[in-house]
């Protein structure tokens, strides 16, 4: 019986995702993204039916388990565009270091300014990197993986809108800078936006995002003691 209810939630998640992805392809509005609509529907159903999260996650955790292999898949774009890394290693390194430094420190300062508790501050500090990396880095920063995942999603949506607007008046000339802006500021969501604007922008954005994610995971234990 337990297995069946667990499988029911797993199946419902996959089916809702497949349905909403189709709808989003037909009506590409940011608020119709499966990442907003599907969790919203499922959370409403779980709350109304008074189903605890543990029951939902009994089998659904298999989906989260796929985030690991998905990070391995990031090796493919790195290998494919290694000539871009070799040619532009300097701006890429600067973009990643500046982007991640500003992300962590500005988040912590804004949190303290607004009086948010440390548990939230720690989870928010990794919000600029792609979700699988953020889930790995959040506990090391002293935050919660699940909260970090939600903040990462919100960051992506905010960054997608903010990025286009900022590029309207920021005095940047190179597609390197525009790609780095999306990759450092809005991870995978930004990368999709950058790809739509220009192929080179998209490549730089995805490289910035992947390198930034790996760097944050490696540096999180030290950063946690530092901020």
């Amino acid at each position, binding site marked *: 019986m337990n297995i069946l209810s667990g499988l029911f939630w797993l199946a419902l998640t996959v089916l809702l995702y497949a349905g909403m992805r189709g709808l989003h392809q037909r009506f590409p509005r940011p608020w119709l993204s499966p990442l907003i609509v599907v969790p919203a529907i499922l959370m409403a159903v779980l709350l109304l039916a008074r189903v605890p999260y543990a029951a939902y996650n009994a089998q659904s955790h298999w989906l989260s388990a796929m985030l690991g292999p998905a990070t391995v898949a990031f090796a493919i774009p790195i290998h494919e565009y290694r000539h871009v890394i070799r040619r532009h290693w300097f701006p890429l390194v600067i973009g990643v270091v500046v982007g991640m430094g500003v992300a962590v420190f500005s988040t912590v300062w804004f949190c303290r300014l607004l009086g948010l508790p440390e548990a939230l501050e720690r989870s928010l500090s990794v919000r600029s990197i792609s979700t699988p990396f953020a889930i790995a880095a959040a506990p090391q920063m002293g935050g919660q993986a699940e909260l970090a995942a939600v903040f990462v999603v919100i960051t992506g949506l905010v960054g997608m809108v903010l990025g286009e607007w900022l590029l309207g008046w*920021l005095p940047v000339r190179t597609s390197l800078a525009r790609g780095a802006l999306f990759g450092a500021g809005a991870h995978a969501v930004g990368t999709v936006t950058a790809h739509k604007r220009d192929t080179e922008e998209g490549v730089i954005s995805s490289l910035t995002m992947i390198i930034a994610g790996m760097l944050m995971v490696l540096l999180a234990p030290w950063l946690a003691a530092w901020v």
Partner: protein
Amino acid sequence: MASLSPRLYRFARLLLQIGALIVIWLAAVQLSEHWLHSLPPTVSGIAIALVLLGLGLVKREWLTDGATWLLREMLLFFIPVVIAVLQYRELLDGKLLAIFLVIIGSTACVMIATALAVDLAWRIEEHFRHSDEKQS
């Protein structure tokens, strides 16, 4: 049957490629658990794949379809993690506006600083490229 088999073949190949990426991930998990404790599998998994690709032991075409599929459907894998926020309702209660302000403010800072820094770095890169060309 004849029209189905190429699709079946592609599907089997996709499953095999995803399986290969899962095997690399599991190897990375073992590596961090038993030998390199400070190297998280999210990093070592990418490193293992890059070493295999770099040495030519694995061809990129062998993994491309599986990798593209995993990255394209990654949103699905986030969903259970996002729903877990239900467990943190008390912590978030009354703080949503402040959280939004932090995210908007900090994301703007990150984007402006990164774009200006990279533009400057590109100019430095161009400068050295031209001076290298003059020397040679």
